[in-house]
């Protein structure tokens, strides 16, 4: 059986004038349906570029991305993105931000009432229905990111792409949102690809962690399975030997074998 999402011998070269830099080199990765995969690496290793290519926002130089055996080379709601800086439209209310996505994606298959219900359903899922009439400027960073997640989920994507979704949040809010994402993943079993630079986040959330080598010419250094049973509980895992071992493996990869060299970025 062929994998659900396949990144096939993908590489990306940025060209500026006569200079060209190979950012990603020969990346091959398969993600199964319902799997939660994290991609971790130092900043500048091209992990965001990789996600943008999967999202279709950036085109690959060679190789490609297959979703259910079909090549994707343009953006679409089947690969919804949660952006790092939430990217909510500030002139729309929380409800309207999600509703815009719902209207655009499912206006042909859902009635007005169904679209309203689906919008509210997704706002409930991220516990944001209480603020549905607020504008993004009136809610906190964590709340904005929740709405961003609701908007992405409302598109009923085949793959949910998270681009350092919690990077701009404080530690407590981040933990809270990670729990929410875990609970949602538990409930609807969606396929998730998440970019992160947070080791704990990667180990806690993922089924597999893809570790990237430093750029330029970044590629997959190692793929680590995280065989922890779900549901996972943050506190219980803190002393779990499997958890600690995986965490150590990632740390070792990032800080011993592929130490971040500023000049390389």
């Amino acid at each position: 059986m062929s994998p659900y999402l396949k990144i096939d011998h993908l590489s990306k070269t940025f060209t500026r004038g006569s200079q060209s830099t190979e950012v990603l080199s020969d990346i091959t990765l398969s993600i199964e349906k319902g799997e939660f995969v994290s991609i971790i690496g130092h900043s500048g290793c091209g992990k965001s570029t990789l996600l943008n290519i999967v999202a279709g926002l950036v085109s690959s130089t060679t190789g490609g991305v297959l979703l259910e055996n079909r090549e994707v080379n343009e953006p679409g709601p089947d690969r919804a993105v949660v952006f790092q800086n939430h990217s909510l439209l500030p002139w729309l209310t929380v409800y309207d931000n999600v509703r815009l996505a719902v209207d655009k994606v499912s206006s042909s298959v859902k009635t007005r009432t169904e679209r309203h219900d689906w919008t509210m359903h997704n706002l409930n899922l991220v516990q944001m229905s209480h603020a549905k009439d607020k504008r993004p400027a009136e809610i906190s960073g964590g709340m904005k990111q929740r709405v961003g997640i609701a908007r992405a989920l409302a598109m009923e994507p085949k793959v949910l792409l998270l681009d350092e979704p919690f990077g701009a949040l404080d530690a407590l809010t981040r933990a809270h949102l990670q729990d929410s994402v875990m609970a949602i993943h538990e409930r609807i079993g969606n396929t998730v690809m998440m970019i992160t630079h947070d080791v704990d986040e990667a180990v806690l959330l993922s089924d597999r962690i893809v570790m990237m080598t430093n750029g330029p010419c970044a590629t997959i250094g190692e793929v680590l399975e995280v065989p922890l049973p779900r549901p996972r509980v943050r506190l219980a895992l803190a002393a779990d030997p499997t958890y600690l071992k995986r965490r150590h493996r990632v740390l070792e990869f990032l800080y011993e074998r592929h130490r971040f060299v500023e000049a390389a970025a």
Partner: protein
Amino acid sequence: MTSPILKSAATVHKPSATAAFAGGSVAVSSAVGGSVVKLKLPGRSFASRIMPVLNAVASRIVPPLVMILAILAVWQFLGSKPGATLPPPSKIWTEAYDLIVDPFFVAGPQDIGLGWRVLISLQRVAIGYGLACLIGIMLGTLIGQSVWAMRGLDPIFQMLRTISPLAWLPISLAAFRDSQPSAIFVIFITAVWPIIINTAVGIRNIPQDYRNVAAVLRLNHVEFFFKIMIPSAAPYIFTGLRIGIGLSWLAIVAAEMLTGGVGIGFFIWDAWNSSRLSDIVVALVYIGLIGFALDRIMALLATIVTRGTASN
């Protein structure tokens, strides 16, 4: 020891007439003890609620009123000196009494109140400015979206926008062979540049994030224009619209002076030719007030429309 505290409590007490400070004065007085509690705390009476509003209104109204009175006084003094060439306010009041008190009288085809004249000028501005808004936003969007359109058109626009509105008048008179469309064209050509340029900047500054959102949602061009572009660029567009309305109002007076008709601009020219200086001064006040009102209306419109857009 107690005196500085009393003093601070007293200073707090004074603004405590404004309800917002009432809580603060309670905290201070309870902290420092008995002697200060004697200071009477204002109850939440009608007076204490109306005072802040009155205060706010007064602080806005009183300073300009005082300044206007001062200017009038100086003007009166200078104008009443022997050998003064311009009339003092008192003379203007008596000479142009009918123009001041009744803006909407009709005594003959050319003898109408200034209110009517302003309305006629405003009508010309509305047509010319309306066209400028429409075409300015469209061209601005084109330049903002397309690098090639920008490279091709921007230098031309940058040059054209420096041309004085009145310099366009002979050309437009030659082209339209009629004063009415010529005046409207002059308004259009004056107002359109800031609208084009500001719109283009606004479109160019649409954050990549919003474009990405639009791409993921697969918004088509029309949806992108109305749902992302216009709201995102709205603060810039309104800056252009506001500059544009100001320039239109500047240009209409000059254009009407040359094209004739019944507008406020021609009225000034006519008054000058028949040496009615007082009438000119009254007309200037009208023009100033209307210009001020137009600017404020655009500003108000901008705050309503772009509510939330700028603050993120």
